[in-house]
């Protein structure tokens, strides 16, 4: 079921370093004056290896989708680099950019708006070949489109239908087929199942899993559903307010989170077993996410963290293996941007300001 685990030695296919995206806030009609900026993405680093699935989780507005758009070059970063096989793709344009686009494709969140309602399925999936005619000779395109429909589990006879004749899950399969048409190496999936029914979510996730093995794909899988991310990912990065605060293998993150934000996030995952639910304790964070126009100094999570101390306001914690955990090894020793990183499985009692679930209602 789980995708083939990528070995740590596999070559990196995408290297993201120091990625920033700040949207300027301006005032004035004729003479625009910049009065600040929305720091949607504020220093993101990660590496995606060949054949691997990197999950990125985080709450709404933390910059996940902006990262996705920058990876497929729909947005230009303010600073930083995205290296595809060693080549920085953020500064490419024209022919070189078009060539790179062949290798990095995207699957969109909403299957209802991501397919042009006035194009047939055949035209939608075949469009990549119109844009990149060198991939498939003209006479071969229809056959390839039918093959792709078959690969994603749709009847090839549906080639002349329009998107509105399909259900949400089927539409998402069409979106995936379009993404696969150019045989990319990387697929960036921005919440690919969030808009679907739970039952259909599983089908689409399993399809993506199967395609990964079949086509040797690397995924950047963005979602806010923690259990789905765990199901498909080899590694998981947790984002908060434009930055990755913790990253590691899925078991490291889910069973041994060391960043307080990850612990709080995991404690909010619904538990299907009522017996276990009775005994589990939830971490309720105080306050709201700060505005991305005005990010707190030092550690950006300190305003809501129960562990926050003087040091957190002064020093920005680096995303590295915390020194005091480094020596011990084991699953706790993964990158975590916290001065006081500490293992604490959420299912056991978490330290600090812990509120029982009942107190919430």
């Amino acid at each position, binding site marked *: 079921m789980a995708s083939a685990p990528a070995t740590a030695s596999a070559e990196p296919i995408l290297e993201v370093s120091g990625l920033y995206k700040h949207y300027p806030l301006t005032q004035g009609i004729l003479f625009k004056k910049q009065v600040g900026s929305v720091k949607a993405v504020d220093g993101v680093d990660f590496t995606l290896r060949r054949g691997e699935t990197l999950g990125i989780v985080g709450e709404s507005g933390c910059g996940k989708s902006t990262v996705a758009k920058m990876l497929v070059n729909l947005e230009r970063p303010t600073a930083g680099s995205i290296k595809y096989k060693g080549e920085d793709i953020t500064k490419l344009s024209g022919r070189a950019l078009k060539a790179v686009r062949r290798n990095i494709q995207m699957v969109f969140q909403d299957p209802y708006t991501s397919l042009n309602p006035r194009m047939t399925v055949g035209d939608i999936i075949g469009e990549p070949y119109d844009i990149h005619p060198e991939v498939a000779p003209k006479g071969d395109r229809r056959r390839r489109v039918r093959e792709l429909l078959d690969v994603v589990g749709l009847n090839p006879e549906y080639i002349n239908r329009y998107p509105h004749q399909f259900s949400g899950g089927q539409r998402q399969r069409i979106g995936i087929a379009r993404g696969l048409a*150019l045989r990319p190496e990387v697929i960036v999936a921005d919440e690919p199942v969030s808009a679907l029914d739970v039952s259909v979510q599983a*089908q689409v996730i399993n399809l993506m899993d199967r395609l990964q093995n079949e086509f040797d794909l690397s995924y950047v899988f963005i979602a806010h559903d923690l259990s789905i991310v765990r199901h498909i990912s080899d590694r998981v990065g947790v984002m908060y307010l434009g930055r990755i605060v913790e990253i590691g293998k899925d078991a490291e993150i889910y069973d041994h989170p060391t960043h307080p934000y990850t612990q709080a996030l995991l404690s909010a995952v619904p538990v299907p077993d009522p017996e276990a639910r009775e005994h589990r304790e939830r971490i309720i964070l105080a306050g709201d996410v700060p505005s991305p126009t005005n990010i707190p100094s030092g550690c950006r999570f300190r305003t809501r963290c129960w562990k926050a101390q003087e040091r957190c306001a002064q020093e920005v914690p680096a995303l590295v293996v915390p020194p005091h955990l480094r020596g011990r090894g084991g699953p706790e020793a993964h990158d975590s941007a916290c001065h006081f990183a500490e293992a604490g499985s959420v299912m056991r009692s978490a330290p600090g300001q812990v509120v029982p679930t009942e107190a919430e209602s």
Partner: protein
Amino acid sequence: MPDQSFQSEGAIAGTGMGGAMDLATSEAETLEKTAGGPAGTGPAGRPRSLWSDAWRDLRRNPVFIVSGLIILFLVFISLWPSAIASGSPLKCDLAKAQQGSGPGHPFGYDGQGCDVYTRTVYGARTSVAVGVCATLGVAILGSVLGALAGFFGGLGDSILSRITDVFFAIPVILGGLVLLSVVTSNSVWPVIGFIVLLGWPQISRIARGAVITAKQNDYVQAARALGASNSRLLLRHIAPNAIAPVIVVATIALGTYIALEATLSYLGVGLKPPSVSWGIDISAASPYIRNAPHALLWPSGALAITVLAFIMLGDAVRDALDPRLR
């Protein structure tokens, strides 16, 4: 037939959702459904596109057929009015002024003693020429400028928006009196030019808004991520999804342009007699409406049918370009 297959498809999808408790069953169901394929999908071998599907749809649409026949007839009598009207529209006999219909003169005579039937037939040329040419000019100029402004935005968009504001501020009648009074030519072209000049901002605004709405859709982003050029984005993705309001407004505007030509002619700055147009006849006949209503009703009726035909045509085309309505 396509409607039927769509319904059965929806019904199957519905059960698929409902019985979704068991994932395996649901997936099997999906596969079965995809393998089965209801009848009526048509042969999958022949590629189909939006335009070929729209044409197939239009050919079977009675509204399109009726309005198309009316328009073809209008075009025919505009080109060869003598084919169905033997007399001359300028041969008038004051002695017969305001007389009702008689043998050989089914529509009767107008205030000048001219044959209303002949004048209505001959008037089609001017009115159809003004309506069609002005609408085409307005639609092309307005939608191209509006689409470019909406798609690229920025400084060009701001400048264009301010220019449309300026044009909106010009009163049509006053503008017509000022601009057309200096024109001495008694042809339809100055009138068409004037209507295009004042009419394009309306379409431009609508096209701009529709393009801005359409370009925010994910499918435009998806095409961009595939490496599509701006012209492909505009022509393949944005234009077909933004054209509906332009068609609707343009077909309604066609009627108002024919009426505007009549108004301008009435004021003496449009076409002048001896030109023949429905507008001239309507304005000439309106003082005698009590004595000779027929002189007003026939050209007005022709105008109404023409406008209606174009609106119906626009409606049918708009619907045919929306696959969701099939």
